[in-house]
């Protein structure tokens, strides 16, 4: 599948933003994160900027952005519609939570409830994004249960690394958050490695033989394409990446997205100092870069069944 940069940017940015809010809401509900105003303003503003620019970038890549509101209507059948509805509804608990914390500075039940709802809706939004891909039977690399796990775990991983950096920048230190980051990095890496193993070892039930229905006569191969130049299908679905490049990019993703942030996060266990602060920010930069490479591969390695009509033998 053709890797669309706007979608890669959107899912990476909004994933980190929603992941941050899931953990912040839980941390607040159990009263383990600092109540300080500077920390509060920084987390809420950064999360809102990340999810809002992500949503806007995904809207602007549409051919008809002025009709985007229509996408909220088909939530009964479409995961894309559900994602849109959830993304908008989620603003309500986020803004209520921010209002309670930053303006009323209250710690009452309504505030705890808003925090929990915020976590829940952010989690559901990440899940619905993953289901847009996981519900497509046409792409074997997407329609499997590793995909929602990968999206959710990567969002929580990047969100926790982000909170860790904000904590240290605002002069706070929370050992629990550093340890959570380490745990999420390990969990996300295990899921991602399992995913890569899965797509290497299995393939779609669909083949050139089932696509043409000619399997009973023998092995099917293409002798002539219907057209001499690439059409929409080949440009959108025909993106192929050489296996050696995929292997290299996968190593880059593992190093930058997981291994280096893990080591840098260990340094942040040291508490509030310049080294911790720099490590936490570097961990964030490496982690986001690693996720962008991971997401690029998520598209580039995915093979669509339509390519079975254009010379692919498996999907």
């Amino acid at each position: 599948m053709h890797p669309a940069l706007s979608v890669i940017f959107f899912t990476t940015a909004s994933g980190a933003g929603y992941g941050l809010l899931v953990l912040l809401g839980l941390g607040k509900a159990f009263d383990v994160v600092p109540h300080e105003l500077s920390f509060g303003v920084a987390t809420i503003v950064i999360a809102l900027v990340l999810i809002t620019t992500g949503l806007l970038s995904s809207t602007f890549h549409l051919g008809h952005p002025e009709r985007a509101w229509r996408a909220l209507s088909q939530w009964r059948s479409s995961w894309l519609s559900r994602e849109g509805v959830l993304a908008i509804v989620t603003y309500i608990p986020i803004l209520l939570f921010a209002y309670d914390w930053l303006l009323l500075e209250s710690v009452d039940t309504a505030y705890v409830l808003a925090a929990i709802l915020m976590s829940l809706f952010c989690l559901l939004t990440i899940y619905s994004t993953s289901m847009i891909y996981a519900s497509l039977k046409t792409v074997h690399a997407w329609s499997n249960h590793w995909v929602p796990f990968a999206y959710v775990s990567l969002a929580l991983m990047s969100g926790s690394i982000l909170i860790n950096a904000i904590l240290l920048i605002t002069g706070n230190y929370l050992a629990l958050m550093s340890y959570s980051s380490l745990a999420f990095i390990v969990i996300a890496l295990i899921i991602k490695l399992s995913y890569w193993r899965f797509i290497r070892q299995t393939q779609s039930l669909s083949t050139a033989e089932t696509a043409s229905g000619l399997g009973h006569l023998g092995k099917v191969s293409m002798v002539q394409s219907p057209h001499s130049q690439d059409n929409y299908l080949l440009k959108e679905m025909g993106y192929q990446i050489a296996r050696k490049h995929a292997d290299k990019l996968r190593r880059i993703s593992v190093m930058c997205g997981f291994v280096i942030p893990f080591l840098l996060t260990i340094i942040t266990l040291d508490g509030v100092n310049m080294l911790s602060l720099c490590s936490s920010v570097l961990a964030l930069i490496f982690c986001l870069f690693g996720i962008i490479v991971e997401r690029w591969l998520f598209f580039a390695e995915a093979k669509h069944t339509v390519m079975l009509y254009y010379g692919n033998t498996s999907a």
Partner: protein
Amino acid sequence: MTCLPKTSSGKKLGLVIDLDICVGCHACATSCKEWNTSGYSAPLTDLDPYGAEPDGVWFNLVHSFEVKNEGGDSQTVNFPRSCLHCDDAPCVTVCPTGASYKREEDGIVLVNGDTCIDCKLCSWACPYGAREYDTDTGVMKKCTLCVDKIYNQNLPEHSRVPACVAACPTGARSFGDLGDPNSGVSKLVKDREGFDLMPEQGCSPVNKYLPPRVRQTEVREDTPHLQAQVSDTANALLKWIDKALSR
């Protein structure tokens, strides 16, 4: 509404494509383009049609496959590909706006170009590559089964068939109601063991394909012998020329 229709009239209009007869002339593809470029989804945009990188919207395409059996014998099969108007159309249910829909009355799958936002998700959801994106108008387009032709009262009755069916010079394409077990197309599917493409994708396509005949591999005894024919009919002059040239 992009939920699939819960009630159906039982009518399932569609095509039956005979892979045994198709000669791969592309008449279906070009006549489709000709009719539809001024029809329901008009225009079927062409970009750089006479340049180095021609591109454009086509609802019907003819592939050519080679099928090789275990003995090493191979045959060429021409394979027209277009929308199969699936019963469980995934292109319809993924649509976030309701632009993509399946008609209750006859099962035809259509796109409403006025409400499509160009998210392209339907083209990702279709296993058969039936969706064609028009970069010029920014909406998704697809085979309409010539909905503006098959019900057109201004046309004589025999013309009320999809353009691809009318154009096929070999009669490899048939059009009818596949929901009616007694229709001509349903009988054809039954007699010739028509099949679904990629049944494992679970789309329950309405269009069916008929398989090519299994080729005979042994030479028949009554096959005329070319050399014998020549020597029988040749006269003395030809024999002399043959002899002179054979030196």
